[in-house]
């Protein structure tokens, strides 16, 4: 047995040499071919002037909770467009999905303000004709042509809904009821805190520091100098041992609260609504320091295969009824100002509860997600960009 084994080994050595030779040749050829080609983003799609016949299918990248059967089913019946949704857990994931060939695989993406400009600059999304969306003229003025989806007067999508990132807590375990973000940075609830697994979470820490440590001089939580970023990062590093889990999908956080593993955390209103529907003892609020938030846009992929269905969808979700349904289901504020009566019809007092009739000052009080860049508003270019934020986030999570 020994002898046979050693002979086998000798043979395999010489075979290995042969294989190594083959591998070396292939390696060389790959290097040559790979270095030759380089693709450039191009945008061939012409802006549509009329919605044609539906293609039967619509593929979308969406936030969890944005494609509920409640309004997707009627859409499918009306238009014959079968909706296939892929949930993304963060803006980064949406951008990556679109960049890695998603711009021809998917038709629409529900991008937040921190992803939309990256998609426009990367050529992943196409201009949209707002005249084909009748309800667009009923949108609140701030969301008709906001800077995050309209560049040089060209619209790259239709605004959808907006809302704040809230503080969620278990009413039985967290007493007294919190009114400050400090509760997620304090050791009182060590091992029972959860926050999103998302670099943009640094802005939440920066917002908190802008109120609690004015000496740092943070005016905009998305425009941080190295020193200010360092302060936010060290706050988040102190927070890490207190965290039970960084949640990636909304359903993760719902599980954590349902099973008692987390009692307080940063959240979206969607989780609160889902948990309350499941009779979990939770509540959410906007703490005294204010909140970051999102303003989402349905954006059309630059190589969308089903543009007619995509336009039908953008038209459909902008109507007051669907705006109201989604607003109440997710717990956010509709872009369409006419959604108020429909909201109250579904749930009494919902219009006021979800701020659909709030004055413009409420909109302005939310610090909406945007992509950090090196250019600060003060004209200097000493700010940290999103790459820095991503690296720091890896460092924080360790």
């Amino acid at each position, binding site marked *: 047995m020994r002898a046979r084994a050693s002979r086998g080994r000798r043979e395999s050595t010489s075979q290995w040499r042969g294989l190594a030779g083959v591998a070396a040749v292939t390696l060389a050829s790959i290097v040559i071919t*790979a270095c030759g080609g380089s693709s450039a983003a191009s945008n061939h799609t012409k802006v549509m002037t009329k919605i044609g016949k539906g293609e039967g299918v619509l593929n979308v990248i969406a936030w969890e909770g944005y494609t509920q059967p409640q309004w997707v089913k009627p859409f499918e019946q009306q238009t014959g467009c079968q909706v296939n949704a892929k949930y993304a857990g963060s803006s*980064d994931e949406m951008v990556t999905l679109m960049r890695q060939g998603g711009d021809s695989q998917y038709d629409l993406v529900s991008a937040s303000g921190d992803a939309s400009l990256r998609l426009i600059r990367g050529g992943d999304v196409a201009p949209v004709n707002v005249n084909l969306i009748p309800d667009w003229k009923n949108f609140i003025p701030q969301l008709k042509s906001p800077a995050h989806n309209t560049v040089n007067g060209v619209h790259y999508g239709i605004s959808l809904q907006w809302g704040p990132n809230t503080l969620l807590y278990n009413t039985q375990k967290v007493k007294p009821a919190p009114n400050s973000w400090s509760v997620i940075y304090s050791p009182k609830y060590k091992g029972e805190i959860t926050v999103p697994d998302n670099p943009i979470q640094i802005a939440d820490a920066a917002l908190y520091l802008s109120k609690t440590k004015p000496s740092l001089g943070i005016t905009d939580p998305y425009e941080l100098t190295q020193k200010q970023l360092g302060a936010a990062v060290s706050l988040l590093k102190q927070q*890490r041992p207190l965290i039970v889990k*960084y949640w990636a999908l909304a359903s993760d956080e719902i599980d954590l609260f349902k*099973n008692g593993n987390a009692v307080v955390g940063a959240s979206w209103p969607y989780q609160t609504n889902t948990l309350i529907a499941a009779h979990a003892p939770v509540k959410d609020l906007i703490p005294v320091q204010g909140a970051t938030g999102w303003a989402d846009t349905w954006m059309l992929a630059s190589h969308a295969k089903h543009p007619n269905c995509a336009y039908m969808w953008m038209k459909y979700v902008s109507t007051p009824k669907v705006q109201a349904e989604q607003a109440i289901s997710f717990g956010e504020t509709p872009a369409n100002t006419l959604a108020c009566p429909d909201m109250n019809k579904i749930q009494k007092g919902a219009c006021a509860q979800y701020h659909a009739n709030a004055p413009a000052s409420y909109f302005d009080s939310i610090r909406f997600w945007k992509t950090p860049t090196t250019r600060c508003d003060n004209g200097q270019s000493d700010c940290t*960009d999103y*790459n820095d934020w991503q690296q720091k986030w890896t460092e924080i999570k*360790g």
Partner: protein
Amino acid sequence: MATSAATPSGPPGGLALRVSAALFRRAWLRAVLLLGAPGAWFVLIYLLALVILFVSAFWTVDSFTGNLVHSWTLSNFKTLVDDPVYRAIALRTIVIAAAVTVTDALLAFPFAFFAARIASPRTRAALFVAVLMPLWSSYLVRVYAWRLILDRDGIANWALAQVGLGPQHIAYTNVAMWLVFSYIWLPFMVLPVWTAIERVPDSLLEASSDLGARGWQTFRRVLLPMVLPGVMAGSIFTFSLTLGDFITPTLVGGAGSDFIGNVVYNNVGVSSNVPFAAAFATVPVIVMGIYLVIARRLGAFDAL
């Protein structure tokens, strides 16, 4: 081996006969026919993928547009070495993979010994099915089941409270990952150890006790050296499977539980930085290479 090849039978002169005669005379032709398809698969799909991976590790990504920059640089590897975060993550991955391997070996040995040498044939069959049963259900289902077990209000904490050890924070920690990994990969350790123990002749154990060795001595000096190759073979599975996993850390890991696989996944799926992911992915390849060399020294491949 050459003489054991098929000898021609049946009426002379047929096409089949001529083909088989031609094959009989040309050993290399037989080898080409046998190994051609799997060999091409191996080179084109498997080795090529590895080569492309390794080559792309020397590229970078334009942070603004997200496009690949095809210029040669060592910056990805430099980040890996310089940044303590990635060292910590690599170390965590390797330490947990090693802990899982040791745990599985300790659990598998007595079980396999009982199954192979003590149990009746009926019990043996039942045990065999019991080992393989978890493999019939989805990996994800089993990990999620563990999430329920380890929850704050789960069975594990209930049981601990019964014996007065109070509720523990097990859910979403490295301990949870160690438990789940040890459970998931246990069958891959049990089976090779079982085979190795089965192969040890009874006569050797009897001779050992005839010569006056106590049970412990027989175990240490006769059984263990003969079963060690089987344990090493099993450890290759448990170690490499843990080393490359990212699903269990995502589902049961907590804050600071990222594995190499998670960083790779995030760089590909979230940050769109394939070159850096490729660079980090070479770490487990190197670790596994070193491990295999050690395993070979210890005779793991004799047991295969």
